[in-house]
């Protein structure tokens, strides 16, 4: 970056090439869009990094500067595409939002189960989430079937109490 600021085209090119995978990963983690959208955003970010490199302060971390630009370009992209959002894309959007809800719910469940003793949470995961039978779960955890049933029962009771805020 410093080389680029001093007018060294070769080091500026090295910098831009090094940025490409970082920024691509940044967008891929945050967006459920097609590859072409992400490519466009990466290129826009490269252009901004190059043409507005004067706004980089060498005394501050480079990463913060780069990701601030990347984030701005992403928000700008959402704003633009939000304004011209077509009705044909609606199904995709709904699917994506359903995905977000379900992954959010999955995270909540994981967090709740983590609070239970391992034996109970394993039994609940096996029988209620993965859909194994009591016998299969018992075989996998090397404990008796009645033990599984009791663990599930106690675990669910504890979860219900926790959700009711007791």
């Amino acid at each position, binding site marked *: 970056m410093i080389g680029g600021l001093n007018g060294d085209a070769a080091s500026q*090119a090295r910098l831009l090439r090094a940025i490409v995978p970082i920024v691509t990963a940044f967008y891929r983690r945050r967006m459920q869009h097609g590859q072409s959208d992400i490519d466009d955003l990466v290129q826009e970010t490269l252009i901004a990094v190059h043409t507005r490199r004067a706004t980089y302060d060498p005394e501050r971390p480079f990463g913060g500067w780069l990701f601030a630009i990347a984030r701005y370009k992403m928000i700008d992209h959402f704003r633009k595409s939000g304004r011209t959002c077509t009705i044909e894309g609606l199904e995709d959007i709904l699917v994506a939002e359903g995905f977000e809800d379900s992954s959010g719910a999955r995270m909540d469940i994981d967090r709740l189960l983590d609070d239970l003793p391992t034996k109970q949470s394993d039994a609940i995961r096996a029988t209620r989430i993965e859909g194994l039978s009591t016998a299969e779960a018992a075989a996998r955890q090397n404990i008796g079937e009645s033990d599984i049933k009791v663990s599930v029962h106690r675990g669910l009771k504890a979860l219900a109490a926790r959700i009711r805020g007791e």
Partner: protein
Amino acid sequence: MTVNTDQLIEALVRDTPPVPRRAVGRRLVAGIAAGALGTFLLVALWLGFNPDLATAIRHYSFWMKWGYTLSLGACAVAATARLARPDGDAAGWLWVMALPVLALAAIGVFEMSHVPSAQWLAMWLGQSWSICSARVFLLSLPIFGGLLWSFRSLAPTRLRAAGATAGLTAGAWAATLYCLHCPEVSAIFVLTWYTLGIGMAASVGAFVGPRLLRW
């Protein structure tokens, strides 16, 4: 994809002039200076200088006014320079700005304690309260335009905040130049009507920032 990323990088770096030190500050100062020249000409040709400027300049109230508008202007430029960078945050400078406001308020209370309360209203309204704020606002427009030019090569990411500080900067420097015309002398006049004009400029800046500062 329309252009290959490698080709794009090749094309970009073909144009890599060195960036001067303090490039952001220079760019802002250039924009403000160009705009301030326009504002100065407006004061000179449209409003005219205060005919008593030579005596006014020896009086403390002129320096009180300049001290107020110049310190606001300096803080506003510092805040704008922070927000012109993508990772900038200007909250600190906006707190510093409370100091001149409080200082002027203290002077205002001190002045009022030395005159009978029957004159307070006259002190507060002066002769030009109804036009002062609007003039400060109008005079801020050339400087705001200059700042918009500056921002074309900068990278603000918080557009509303950047627009507001740009408006604040324009308003404070416009008020500084308006002092060359304005004959008012009381602190509470300045505190109310100058600040109102500067605040109007900042509000309009915040309003148009997201539209005009996009990049």
